[in-house]
């Protein structure tokens, strides 16, 4: 167990994980940014943020236009993290928090029996994947990656990003 921990604390490992998580998030933001209306409709399908009698459309719409750009900024910083640590842990924390929200939202939809034809994860058109247990499993794997980046940072001496030996 101890050796696994030590392995995960190595700087090269963090570089690779940072790149992987960053690429996923930047890729995920692309379609949603290009077609905000289509993505807003997908957000409505989740029936979590309205719109309904109590919640005006603004709430789901604001989420739909801001979420992909937050994914882009956090994912972009993580991609830079392959070369050097640019707010890597903080960006991973944002991605991790988003993944927790995604898992919660998809679980809610499944529990409510809402048949999401497209989860709105990577694509906003008909080619998108549905929301099911496989999706939650994928999210949990990404969440584990974010967890390593956040909670097992490379051991550092005086604060540089040198690899521990």
């Amino acid at each position: 167990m101890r050796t696994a921990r030590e392995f995960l604390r190595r700087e090269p490992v963090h570089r690779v994980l940072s790149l992987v998580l960053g690429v996923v998030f930047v890729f995920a933001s692309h379609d949603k940014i290009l077609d905000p209306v289509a993505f807003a409709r997908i957000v409505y399908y989740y029936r979590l943020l309205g719109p309904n009698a109590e919640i005006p459309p603004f709430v789901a719409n604001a989420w739909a236009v801001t979420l992909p750009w937050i994914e882009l900024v956090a994912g972009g910083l993580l991609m830079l993290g392959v070369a050097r640590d640019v707010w890597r842990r903080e960006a991973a924390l944002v991605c991790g928090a988003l993944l927790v929200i995604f898992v919660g939202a998809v679980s809610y939809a499944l529990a409510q029996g809402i048949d999401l034809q497209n989860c709105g994860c990577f694509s906003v058109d008909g080619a998108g994947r549905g929301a099911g247990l496989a999706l939650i499993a994928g999210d949990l794997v990404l969440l584990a990656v974010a967890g390593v980046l956040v909670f097992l940072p490379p051991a550092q001496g005086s604060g540089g990003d040198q690899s521990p030996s």
Partner: protein
Amino acid sequence: MPIKLFRVAVIVLAGAAAGLAGNAVHPAGLELGRNAFLRQGDEMIPVSEAKARHERGALFLDARGHMFWEMARIPGSVNLPEEDFDRSFAALEPQLRARFDLVIYCSGYGCETSHKVAERLRDKGIHAAIVEEGFPAWQDAGYPVEQGPVRP
């Protein structure tokens, strides 16, 4: 080195600001105060207005799947599900073209089907109003509901 919450806040706020700005300059941007299900030409009516039209003999179109329609529906409604639009429309076309008081509903908030069916009807030159909160609102209002297999 602890996580710097300031940085977390900057990432989130920068993303959110970029998102609002990006949407504002996007040629097909989202109008933030408007329901994104709404298409050009959609006529939305509250459930009370739907009831009034029902009493005046309007023809109601149920855009939900066939199973849902068979389970419970607005009395006298016909099923025009989006996933089976072409076949259902072909069967209903003469009836639909003879009417000018069509009303569509589906399963309420988060249900886009009414809008999609209304759009497809519009493409064929047929106008139909959409019940704002759909079938759940109709039920909640205590209006009559028809259940079980359809009488011939």
